[in-house]
């Protein structure tokens, strides 16, 4: 079988490479930046593997495709924490919690006592929560490193340049707008804090009509706060307004964040199609895997599997269409 050239070493490209290598397909990965890093939006991801929560606004196909993520990442050597996730709202936004519950599945309602058994600090300020028991999270940067190392063990390194062979899988994200003109950037901004006084062992989403927030524990007292969602392809530094909103919301979730060290403020633009659903598009000898929007780590495994099925000829019954999301 001839070598498949994968363009892009973000979460999509590395997942596709890993999946193909697992099926003994020879691959090479080409990325002018040399590997995952701050230049790509995967670097700034939250790392929640929370398909049911995403179902609040995402279509059912996202929920379905996200189910395999935690297992895939574990198999690929990433450290996945399967501790579930929590959704809370402050007193006057309680209806937001009711609505979130109505529009999602896979959760149980917790009262304060139930919440206290999971996250005692959160239970001090919140008397209700939704518990999504089967959800998981990972540290995106460590997960990407695990993929790079796994590929290296199979002899696959990331080349900065190279002429693509006859078979190409294009995972360049927004850079592929030359071939996929309806891709657009959706800006996201995040912060990383070190807050030794805060104790959380699973992601917590704070619902708020203006400033929703999620906090993902990264271990060692480090937490990721995310994320804004702005219709803009701008990739520049975090705006003060967004930083104030994110940090303020964290403070509302737990005042102990007030003493946190702000380690990082980061921003990038996520690639998305007009329906915010990902696509695997076969066009000639090139397969495009793109449009992962805010679901990179959640959906890349399912998309990688589909792209690999296509390469290995197992996708005969699956639909590959430019204008439809995979269902």
């Amino acid at each position: 079988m001839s070598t498949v050239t994968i363009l892009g070493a973000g979460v999509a490209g590395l997942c596709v490479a890993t999946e193909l290598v697992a099926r003994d397909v020879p691959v090479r990965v080409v990325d002018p930046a040399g590997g995952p890093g701050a230049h790509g939006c995967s670097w700034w991801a939250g790392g929640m593997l929370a398909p049911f929560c995403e179902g609040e606004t995402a279509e059912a196909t996202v929920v379905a495709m996200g189910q395999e993520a935690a297992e895939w990442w574990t198999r690929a050597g990433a450290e996945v924490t399967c501790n579930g996730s929590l959704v809370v709202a402050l007193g006057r936004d309680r209806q937001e919690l009711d609505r979130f519950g109505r529009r999602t599945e896979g959760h149980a309602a917790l009262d304060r006592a139930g919440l206290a058994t999971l996250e005692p600090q959160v239970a001090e300020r919140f008397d209700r929560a939704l518990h999504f028991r089967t959800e998981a999270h990972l540290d995106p940067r460590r997960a990407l490193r695990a993929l790079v190392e796994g590929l290296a063990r199979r002899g696959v390194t990331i080349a900065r340049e190279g002429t693509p062979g006859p078979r190409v899988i294009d995972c360049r994200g927004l850079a592929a707008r030359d071939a996929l003109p309806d891709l657009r950037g959706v800006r996201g901004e995040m912060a990383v804090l070190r807050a030794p006084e805060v104790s959380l062992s699973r992601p917590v989403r704070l619902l708020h009509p203006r400033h929703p927030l999620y906090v993902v524990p990264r271990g060692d007292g480090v937490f990721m706060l995310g994320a804004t969602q702005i219709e803009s392809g701008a990739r520049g530094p975090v705006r003060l307004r967004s930083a104030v909103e994110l940090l303020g919301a964290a403070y509302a979730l737990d005042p102990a964040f007030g003493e946190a060290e702000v380690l990082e403020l980061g921003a990038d633009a996520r690639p998305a199609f007009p329906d915010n659903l990902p696509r695997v598009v076969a066009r000639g000898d090139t397969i495009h895997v793109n449009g992962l929007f805010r679901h990179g780590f959640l959906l890349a495994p399912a998309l990688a599997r589909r792209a690999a099925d296509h390469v290995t000829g197992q996708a005969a019954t699956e639909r590959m269409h430019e204008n439809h999301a995979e269902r």
Partner: protein
Amino acid sequence: MPEFYGTHVASRLMLGTAQYPSPRVLEDAFRRSGAGIATVSLRREAGGEGAGTAFWEMIRALGLPVLPNTAGCHSVREAVTTAHMARELFDTDWIKLEVIGHADTLQPDPFGLVEAARILTEDGFRVFPYTTEDGVLGGRLLEAGCEVLMPWGAPIGTGRGLNNVYGLRTLRAQFPDVPMVIDAGLGLPSHAAQAMELGFDAVLLNTAVARAGDPAAMAEGFARALEAGRLAREADPMEPRDMAAPSTPVLGLAVLG
């Protein structure tokens, strides 16, 4: 159908473009409701050079008049700057003017609003001011050059409907010939119908549609309610009365059996 600054609009529904689950859903909501004007917020989406281009292209592709707004501006200077950006980006002199006076209630700042309206009107803008139901303030905005008023139904994003029906009715009566749009605070189609029954010319909403479980269906619901309310207004509805009055006279009925 309403007319704003000499432009006839095809629908009494003005729909915002923020907070939808995806641009595709946004497009569906516009198509199913037949909304006549698309409003767009510049403040949040303007992330730098060419930043919002793809999204704005989608808004333009709706083929509707675009009403840019200064949402999120808390000062006259911010609002004026944003209006100028909007004029360049969308090639329109229309601007929905928001000058927010209170961060929590998002209540308009009446003093800043009048000042910004005057500055922008003198600069050639056609200003659609987001205001309260206050008639004195409405008068000052008209003096400043506004030819449309956009009183709130309730604070932005609350979905509470028409909070002060008496005040809105008074404002409508005070300036019977000025086009007026109920802007903000609507949550249900019945609120929109009520606005029509009170004689307002149009409504502007965003959250009620965008955050519904099925935005396109909710948008259509609003469009139908607007039609119902407007028909009722034109049909000269009865007044409520205290005394029950049977619709069929009871005297003289044959006694059967």
